[in-house]
């Protein structure tokens, strides 16, 4: 399983990357694998406020619909509109297929580094 060192992670399997005050959010390799083939991605709109720990959108796979939990509080700067037409990108390249970029970030959920996230995934696999 692919867990890049430079990212931070939530227990609900989102990854977070910070660059110059812009926070990029996506789903982890573990998440895309557990969900199976993703067939629909529902994203917020530019300018929408997000609250850390609450759903920012949802992804639908052939198994189920699952909420995507926002790792940060802030304002949506951009959404990856490519995913609306081609949700399979999340399966193919989970760390390239970001979901949203967030600015004006005021709060963060409890985040894990790569090692802690790897341990967390091992625990979930039982």
């Amino acid at each position, binding site marked *: 399983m692919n867990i890049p060192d430079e990212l931070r992670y939530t227990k609900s399997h989102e990854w977070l990357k910070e660059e110059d005050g812009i926070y990029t959010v996506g789903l982890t390799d573990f998440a895309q694998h557990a969900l199976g*083939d993703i*067939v629909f991605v529902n994203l917020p709109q530019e300018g929408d406020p997000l609250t850390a720990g609450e759903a920012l959108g949802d992804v639908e796979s052939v198994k189920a619909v*699952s909420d995507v939990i926002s790792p940060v509080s802030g304002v949506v700067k951009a959404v990856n509109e490519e995913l609306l037409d081609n949700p399979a990108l999340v399966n193919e390249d989970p760390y390239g297929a970001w979901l949203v970029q967030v600015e004006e970030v005021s709060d963060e959920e409890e985040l894990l580094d790569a090692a802690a996230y790897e341990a967390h995934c091992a625990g979930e696999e039982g």
Partner: protein
Amino acid sequence: MKLIFERSRPGRGNDILPPLDVPAAPLPEEYRRKAPPRLPEIGESDLSRHYQALSRRAFGVCDGFYPLGSCTMKYNPKLGEEMASLPGFTGIHPLQPIQTILGCQKVITQAEYLLCEVTGMDAMTFQPAAGAHGEFTGLLLIKAYHHSRGDTGRTVILVPDSAHGTNPASAAMAGFTVKNIPSTPEGLVDLEALKAACGPDTAGLMLTNPNTVGLFERDILDITAIVHEAGGLVYYDGANLNAIMGVARPGDMGFDVCHLNLHKTFATPHGGGGPGSGPVGVKEFLIPFLPGSALGGYGGEQSIGQVRAFHANFLVVVRALAYLLRLGNAGIAEAAHTAVLNANYLKQKLEEAGYTAAFPGLCMHEFVLTLEGLKKETGVSALDAAKAMLDAGIHPPTMYFPLIVHEALMFEPTETETPDTLDEAAAVLAEILRRAKENPEALHAAPVTTVIGRPDETAAARRPVVRYAFPEG
């Protein structure tokens, strides 16, 4: 197999539609279509063969065991069909004066009385067309109640994380915000989490009991008290009433509103898209908000208004009434007892065969297995096991639900199965487990006896084809 459009030939037809016996009323020019609709043109013999061929490819409770968890696929007695085809019921017109259809009114009144007895509610509307529609109606009633008291800040509906997906969907449709309540490791509502989630914004809680993993919420009186204390109402999702009907009543547990799925619990056919019927029962204080209808009464100044045209899915109520009257008090309770007994019997047999239950101990009318261990050991998933059941002529159980259980298979055998059928199913599943360990590849390839093996679910979801492409465009 050919589509009906591919069987169509210009000029062919049949006379199975009755002749027009009322004056033709032409549509105004602007509403008329410019070209005739491209309906299939087909003779009666070809038509019969077409549907006969389709029916051979379908699978229903008359074909074999159908333990689809959470769906209560019980056998539907033919008595119900006989009653629902009586001309006094089938020949009525939606606009017929009420004094000419008093028999139909009596059906609704009797069904209301009996189902209120079963649920412990004080009144019931038969308008909702199915379960989710019932949920939506019940939530509108809850909203109307709060608003009638000037209590407009109650915007949150609480839903356990094991709930049916329709619960949060209905709450969102009714304009509420949804808040999830986590389950305990035993699969029950976490009382502390519920207390923490309740507050002045709580409009209500939606719950099934037994819950979605087939367990009885033993703290139900505390649960309803906590929500009531916070000023919210409690909604009973009747999805799992089959486990307790005639034995325990939602009304006595503290529920204020409930819907029933007549098409599940009360033995009316379903699974092919309906029609269903999702009547909503309420306690007395909510009666002023009920929708009104010609057959069912109610309505008035505070009513939420009609939620369905005319008499809704009336013939489904006829079937349910026939079922209730045929079984009687003792029979209804016996059905529930047997549903619970059958589920526990099958669960025990499968555990003896080497399967793992997601939650230990006795279940109610359904139970959940987790195949997570098997998948790790052999690579055989819940999907593979379900597909292999098809080859044995068994409809698979519900898969990958509830979401809180990994590699879930959810079985609901219902009360209408004999011990022989349950023994056979257990033997089939024991064999699948043996093959999973010896030859997992064979299970990845199952089913091998069905017309369609493994449809490409991803392509079906990503690029659905829902319209026939006529060759001429």
